[in-house]
Each structure stands twice: as C-alpha cells, then as structure tokens.
C-alpha cells in the first residue's frame, strides 16, 4: 500500500469517526421523536469551545474535557426542557424549525460569550507523529487520531450496551418502534425524549472535544460538522445506530480519497453527490429497514 493511500485512509477514518459520533446524535433524537435536530452541530461546537476555554482558564485537561461534555449535555437537556417539551403537541416540522432556531441562538451566544477567536486545545497525549509503514516514506498519524478512533469505538460499545442491556435503553428503543404501545406499557415518553437530547448532546460535545486538538475550536464550526453528520446519518439510514457509524466512516473516506486522488477542490462535492445518490437509489441508507407507511 502506498504511503499516500495509507495517509488518505487514516485521514478519512479520523474525520469519519467524528461524523459518526455526530450522526449517532442525530439517530438517537430521531428515534425518540422523529425530529431531525439541526442543533446537533452546535453541541460539537460547544464541546470544543468549552474545553478550550476551560484549559485557558487554567483547569487541567482531563477535567476540562469532562466539564465540556457535561456542559454540552446540560445545554441539550435545557434545549429539550425549554424549547422542545413546551411544543410537544406540535407537528414534527415545527419541532425541526425550533431546533434550527436553537442552533442559531447557540451559535450567537457562543460568539458573544466566548468571542469569535479561534481557540486551540492541546492534544491529549502530545503532538509527536507516529510513523507507520516502516520506511521514511511511510504514512504518519497523530496520537490524537488514536484517541478519536478509540473513544468513538468505546462510545459505540457503551451505546450498544445501553440500548440492549439496560431498562432505560430498552424503553427508548420501544418508544422508537411504537410510541403509543410504549406509552401503554407505562414508559414515560417525556423522560425518553429528555434522555435522548441529553445523550446526543453529550455525544456531540464529545466529538467536539476529540476533534478540537486537530482542527481547533471556533464559534462557527458547528454548521459544517452538523451538516456532514446529517449527511452521514442519511447515508447510513436515519435512525440506525450501526448505519450512522458506517455512514460516518464512509463519508470521511470518500472525502479523503476524493481529495487525495481526484481533485481537492471538489472535496465537499463528493460527499454530497454520494449523499444525493444514496437518497435516490438507496433511500433508506445502508441499514434502512424500509419504513413502510401504514395506512
């Protein structure tokens, strides 16, 4: 394998893992409420910005990371409590528009409170690149890449355990399958909705913290990451966990290989062309079950 190919693959996997985390956030909220949460990208921004601000304020890095994820989660819970829950009787489209409004609000607040400066976050374990492929012509990866991949893997495993082995997780799955039946057996749909926002906000913030040492944190990074995460979720089949992960990784690889071998000017174009093709030819994504509309 040539060094360039290996390098492109590594780059694609790193970015893809971040897209996967964002896509998982989309999937969790979609399952609980059929709402596409367009504020998902802002959770990523909040995670990265908060961690950078905390480190600047003198907090140790591990504590800053935990606090940033906690803050992201708190914002997610507040968003659900203050904006989504009061409108729970409203049609799904209304809720989606509420999340768009929330994303604009969050972005504005971040620019106001934290400023428009781009902020760096130190890498979790140094910047010395690791050479793989042996020879001097080999590819290199940063220790942070391993953190991104490892943490994403751990997060996916934890989610699998949560949804398949715990009562709360199963309750959330039940709501996603049939809301009315879940309610009839005594599951609190309101609580499920709250947990889903908290969980996906935490995932988004985690993605933001992981990527910040590689790409920096700024008040406006959420828009593009949110959009790419949404594309990944659609590619994998909206609402599917494994699909979100596969979609994220596929999107990252397509972008990196396209930029490396075809033309870097059309890097974003490849991603969205693939998304359009998927919507036309594979409307339910890789993992789509075929959402049959019952009449």
């Amino acid at each position: 394998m040539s060094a360039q190919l290996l390098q492109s693959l590594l780059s694609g996997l790193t970015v893809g893992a971040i897209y996967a985390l964002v896509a998982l956030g989309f999937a969790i909220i979609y399952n609980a409420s059929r709402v596409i949460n367009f504020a998902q990208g802002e959770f990523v921004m909040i995670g990265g910005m908060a961690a950078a601000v905390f480190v600047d304020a003198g907090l140790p890095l591990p504590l800053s990371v935990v606090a940033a994820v906690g803050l992201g989660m708190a914002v997610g819970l507040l968003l659900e409590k203050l904006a989504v829950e009061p409108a729970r009787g409203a049609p799904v489209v209304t809720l989606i528009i509420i999340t768009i409004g929330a994303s604009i609000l969050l972005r504005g607040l971040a620019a106001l409170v934290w400023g428009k400066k781009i902020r760096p976050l130190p890498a979790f374990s140094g910047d010395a690149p690791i050479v793989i492929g042996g020879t001097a012509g080999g590819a290199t990866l940063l220790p942070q890449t391993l953190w991104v991949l490892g943490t994403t893997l751990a997060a996916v495993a934890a989610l699998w355990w949560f949804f398949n082995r715990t009562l709360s997780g199963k309750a959330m799955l039940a709501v996603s399958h049939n809301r009315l039946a879940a309610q009839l057996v005594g599951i609190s749909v309101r609580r499920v909705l709250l947990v889903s926002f908290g969980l996906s906000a935490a995932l988004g913030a985690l993605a933001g913290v992981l990527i910040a040492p590689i790409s920096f944190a700024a008040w406006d990074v959420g828009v593009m990451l949110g959009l790419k995460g949404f594309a990944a979720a659609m590619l994998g089949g909206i609402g599917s966990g494994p699909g979100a992960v596969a979609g994220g990784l596929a999107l990252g690889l397509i972008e990196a290989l396209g930029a490396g071998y075809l033309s870097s000017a059309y890097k974003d174009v490849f991603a969205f062309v693939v998304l359009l093709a998927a919507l036309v030819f594979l409307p339910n994504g890789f993992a789509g079950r075929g959402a049959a509309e019952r009449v």
Partner: protein
Amino acid sequence: MAFRSLWAIAALVFACAAAAQPEPIRIGAFLSVTGPAAFLGDPEQKTLELYVEKVNAAGGVLGRKLQLYAYDSAGDAEKARAYVKRLIDQDKVDALVGGSTTGETMAAVPLAEAAGLPFISLAGAVVIVEPVKKWVFKTPHTDRMACEKIFTDMKRRGATRVALISGAGGFDRSMRAECLKVAGSAGVQIVADESYGAGDSDMTAQLAKIKATPGVQAVLNAGFGQGPAIVTRNYRQLAIGAPLYQSHGVASKQFVKLAGDSAEGVRLPAAALLVADTLPDADAQKKVVASYKREYEARFKQEVSTFGGHAYDGLMIVLDAMRRAGTTDKARVRDAIEATRGYVGTGGVVNMSAQDHMGLDLTAFRMLEVRGGDWQLVDFRN
C-alpha cells in the same frame, strides 16, 4: 434702550466670533464597523476617530478643524452606496476615506468619480486601482504583491518548483488566482494546486498528494482563518522537507499560538506594523509604526492591526495633500494626492503617480520566519 443696545453689541460680538471660526474640513468615512468584516472596520473607525482628535488638538489643518462623518456600512455594498450618497449630497464632505472591503469600495467608486471627490479606499483588491480611476486611491498592499514577495524569497533559497494549497474563502481564492498569474513572470513553476474547504478539519490527504508530487521545492498556503494553522500542523505531521510559506492573511500572533511548535520555520510576508518592535532603528518606517502602535494600544487597550494602519495612512495622505495644495479644493487635492512622494506610512513608503494610485512596492512587505514562537525578520531588502 440701554439694554437693547447691549443686546445688539452682544449679538454682534457673537456673530463676529462665529465668522472668525472657519468652516471645518469634512472627512467622510464608511466602514464595516459591524458585520462579518468587523475585524477590518472596527480598528479603522477607532483609528480615524483617534487621529482626527489628535490633529484637531494640534490645531487642525490649514487653520481649520477636522470633522469626521463616519457611517457603518456593515460589509454591505448596497449600504455603502447609500451612505456615500449621503456623504456627498448631505454632509458635503471634502474627501472620502473608507470602504473596508472591496465590495463596498467598488460600490462607492462610480459615485466618487461622478462627484469628483478624492477617495482613498482601505480595501485590498487590485481591481480598485487597476485600471487607474481618476479620483480613486488605496492604501493597503495587494495579494499580488504578497505572491511576488514570497516567490522572490523562494527563488533566493533556490526553489522554483512550487506547490500551492489554498482555502475556499474569498481572500484565499483571490490570492491563489494572483499567485498563478504572477508565477510565470516571477520565474517559478506551480507543479501542484490543491485546495480545502471552509471548516475542513484535516488536510493530510491534500498534503500527502503534494508530498507524492515529484520535485516540489517549496509549498505556499494561501489562506485565512484556522485553515492555515491546520495545514501547518499536518505539514509537520507528514514531515514534508520543503519549506512552507504562509500568506500575509495569517500574519498575527494568533497563528503562531494555534499552530504551536509546528509553526517553527514557517515563512510569511507581513506589513512592518506587525514587527514594529523588532524593526531596526535605521528602518524608514520604524518611527511611524512604533508611534502608531503605541498611541493606538494606549488608547484602546487592544493590539494594533494592519487594517487600522491602512486607515491611518489614508487619513494622513489626504491631510498631507491638503497641506501641500494649500486648499481643500477637490481637484487640487486630488492632484496633490497623486503627487504624493516618499510618504512614510504604516503600510510602506508611498510613491504615487498617474499610473499607480497605490504607490507601494515590495519593500512594503517584510519576510518573517517563525523562530522560538516569535517572528524574526529574514529580510534582505529588495
């Protein structure tokens, strides 16, 4: 009766006083103080206010006080047009300084030309002064000059096969186009031309492609914002041996902070203002940049930017022209601006002519190298 005559005398005295006070010189400004280009307009506005105040405290120009009419065009060409109309028709200004962005400037150009009003733009693009417009001048250096400066330095180090990597923003694309245009005449060959999107988080794929391109002797990143810092980090990660050049778009301490150790050895062209403290005392610009920096920072408690410096130069060139013309007559002031020679400003030494309404040459840029987390001048003056 006695009272009435007293009033009459008082009125007469006041009338005389008013007549003795000459009309102020009106300076019109339209700047992007808010909006996406606020980082340009904000220091420009502050600079104009500060120096109008200072000039007035020193007695004004031609024995007349200055009065500043400044409007916030918020980066919007349509607003800029409306405000310039107002400055011309209502405020009846004697000269125009402003237009933080190229879009705002170009919207004002037809109005200034039609009204016959001396206009000094603070925006970057070459189109403002090329082709030459009778009433329009500009103070900032252009990205074409940055390209030429960088290519000159590359050739000095023996690099003629150059790879280009640029972002998707307006600044990035304009600089890329200018660099491609002047590469041939500067004697370098562009062997790779990569780009990355706004908000991209990883550029190793593009850089790996550059690394795999045979014979690359130097790499130039035309970019603005966080992109160049990511490129710099990825560049070190891939251990590419060729020297890396950045553009004047990231000539700030912020870039060094973001890129960290990876920035070591990176070269970039920058205005003298950024290295005011490191300039040798013999440098022609040392005095003006050091005093501007000191006065601005003392007043506003924030770091100077080259953008505020452009406004300083614009105002000073107009006032200097008025002094030499001995009048504020618009046609004569215009001629005097065009005759500006050897004006030492924050942006460089300005020598205007009928063919050149910017008047800067490559000495306006200093080549810097990041060493030990700080700037070092590596200039051989050309």
